[in-house]
């Protein structure tokens, strides 16, 4: 039964945009409250509301697309553009942190010893764990492409293996980076070096976690046979996001870890 004689998807009423906005408001103001009053309640509440909103909103999108078949070719095309624009905005987001890094590192001030790295900072050796992390992310780019080709060639098991490998590599990266954070001899408060290092790599790590979650969702949807060999935009969006995360890491590695050491 077709309810409209046009190709577009006019969505049903949904509470998730409102709850998402409220959650985001609580999250951001909660962070500020955390900084001023050392109280995390508002932040945690905002985070929980935002996570629940995301789960239910995207669950609804899966239902509308896979189960109701409302995603026609033009709808999918629109979403492609949406994802491209979103990733572009994220590129600009990271650009600002790279700007901050170069601002501080190209002309080091008197306060940090007219040198970069600043006097007293023990930087990470770029050919140790950071290099391993680089290899891990590059390999995960290969495995996600393998999974995509498996999907396009109608091969269920190969797609599953590719996706599984990508997720495992992503989790491995996160674990290694977490250990690096714990073992670091400097903190975010340690001069411009610590600030630029932890803000840039920290946001990158957050994006890796988001990307891994997106891939895990694709893995579960694939196991439930949501994807077909021609229509699997959710997977493609996850793969694009993952490649973006990989590229950001390459820039981070080359500038902050390698050039900046």
């Amino acid at each position, binding site marked *: 039964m077709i309810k409209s004689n046009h190709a577009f998807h006019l969505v049903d009423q949904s509470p998730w945009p409102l709850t998402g906005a409220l959650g985001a408001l609580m999250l951001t103001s909660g962070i500020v409250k955390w900084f001023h009053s050392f109280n995390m309640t508002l932040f945690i509440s905002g985070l929980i509301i935002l996570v629940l909103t995301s789960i239910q909103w995207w669950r609804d999108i899966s239902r509308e697309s896979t189960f109701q078949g409302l995603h*026609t070719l033009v709808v999918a095309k629109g979403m492609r553009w949406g994802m491209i624009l979103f990733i572009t905005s994220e590129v600009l987001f990271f650009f600002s942190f790279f700007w901050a890094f170069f601002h501080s590192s190209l002309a080091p001030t008197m306060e940090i010893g007219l040198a970069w790295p600043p006097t007293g900072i023990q930087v990470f050796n770029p050919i140790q764990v950071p290099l391993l992390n680089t290899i891990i992310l590059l390999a995960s780019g290969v495995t996600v492409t393998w999974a995509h080709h498996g999907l396009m060639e*109608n091969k269920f098991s190969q797609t599953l293996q590719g996706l599984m490998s990508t997720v495992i590599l992503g989790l491995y990266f996160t674990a290694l980076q977490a250990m690096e954070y714990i073992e670091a001899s400097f903190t975010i408060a340690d001069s411009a070096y610590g600030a630029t290092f932890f803000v840039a790599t920290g946001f990158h790590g957050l994006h890796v976690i988001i990307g891994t979650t997106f891939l895990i969702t694709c893995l579960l949807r694939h196991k439930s046979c949501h994807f077909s*060999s021609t229509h699997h935009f959710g997977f493609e969006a996850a793969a694009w996001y993952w490649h973006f995360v990989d590229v950001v890491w390459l820039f981070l590695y080359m500038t902050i870890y390698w050039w900046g050491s």
Partner: protein
Amino acid sequence: MAGLLARTGFRLGKRPSLLVCSVRGEKYMADPLEHATGIERKELEAIKKGNPDPFMMRVMKRGPGTKDQPTAVPSFQESRIVGCICHEEAFYVNWMWLYKGEPKRCECGYWFKLTEAQDPFK
């Protein structure tokens, strides 16, 4: 793992979405057209039947466009907006309302007539 996948396929309905191939235990997915549902499926079926533009979103090539043979513009309702691209290098589209029973002439000289649209999904 194979058992889990087989059960997943079975749980989804009478028609299993997974085909188990005996070569190396590779499982294959369903045919995309079979997998689709709803309006997406109708679109794919229409394309397969030979109509690449079931939602009439592409630019239409006009016919002779004279007063005796106006270009037929299909519509499900009593009126439709028509945009005439008068010539190849026109830098604007001439939009106009077209009403049932009233053939209309664009300023460039081409005539349009509203016709009843056939359901592309039949």
